[in-house]
């Protein structure tokens, strides 16, 4: 359940943004979660609700955008789409895929007032 500490990181980012951007209330939080990031969106929502209780983000809507996973084949150099953390290159069949995108997780935008 590392979603709890990730939700705490989201809250920290919100609090820091509140200080620098002067807002008192957060209405919507847009999170971008890569398809290959080890995060369960439902667990994230649950933890987000728990962590934001009593804060300036209480009741905020959490929108999660899933970004696609891609990898580079170390054998043939092809850029391939990845559904899981491991797989076979769709071009040459090699299992030596290096993840190039889709394992990141970030707070993208906030709707605030």
């Amino acid at each position, binding site marked *: 359940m*590392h979603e709890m500490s990730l939700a705490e990181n*989201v809250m920290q*980012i919100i609090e820091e943004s509140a200080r620098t951007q002067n807002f008192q209330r957060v*209405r919507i939080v847009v999170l971008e979660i890569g398809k290959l990031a*080890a995060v369960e969106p439902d667990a994230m929502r649950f933890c987000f609700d728990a962590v934001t209780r009593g*804060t300036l983000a209480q009741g905020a809507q959490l929108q999660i955008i899933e970004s696609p996973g891609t990898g580079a084949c170390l054998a043939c150099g092809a850029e391939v789409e990845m559904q899981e953390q491991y797989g076979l290159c769709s071009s040459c069949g090699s299992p030596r895929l290096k993840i190039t995108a889709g394992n990141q997780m970030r707070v*993208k*935008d*906030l*709707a605030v007032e």
Partner: protein
Amino acid sequence: MCATCGCGSLDVLVGGKRPPRTQNRGPISFRIPQNNVDTSVAERHHHHSPQFEQSPDTEQSRVIQVERDLFAKNNALATKNRNFFAAHNMLAFNLVSSPGSGKTTLLVRTLNALKEAQAMAVIEGDQQTDNDAERIRATGVPAIQINTGKGCHLDASMVGHALEQLEIPQNGLLFIENVGNLVCPAAFDLGEAAKVVVLSVTEGEDKPLKYPDMFRAARLMLLNKCDLLPYLNFDVAQVIANAQRVNPDIEIILLSAISGEGMDAWLAWIASAANAQRPIALQ
């Protein structure tokens, strides 16, 4: 909240103590007089982003672009730890596994084998109890226990705090025994040179496929409790194939921390990692 790294959880204990804090975490209220609010930011950023679903709230709100990685803070602290290890010419390993794989027994045997020749120290991570650090200290090697409370993994800030209290093994080895959990510790860089995943033959062959993040993050897999193989229905070739399917570059050593078979290969792996990491130590 902690003064150095901003770590927030009140449950974490390092060596039985709370890391130093400036204030307790709690609801934060902002009392900014309306006439002090810089509305130019609002005007600059106010747009109807296509990412936002249509909602009446959005109409009255302003949108600010944040674009900040959730792991940025942990990664920055991990880099700080890594620089600390480099400055003290230490090699750090992050030992990860499910609970009960034999990490502590393996560690005790490793420490006993190396303690005459190497400066070493151990950071132990568990939700509760000082039991593992006690077992390590019985070998004569200094150890500090981190209790994560409800936390399911160690993070770079906890390790940073442990380093403040630990007897530093100059030119030596640091073993960080993570919380027994095959999921969460995979995501958190502690500043280690390598993650070493311990899997025991009393678990299933398909563990690498079920928990791919961990086996992908590890440089080495130690297959432990191999002395029990004659009594089990465990397919060694299958577990190796599964681990390599998830991580084609993973190195694998079969051993038993109880019988001692395979320990030489593990100790040789540590020595070669030390030589690769610290060419100066050879001279």
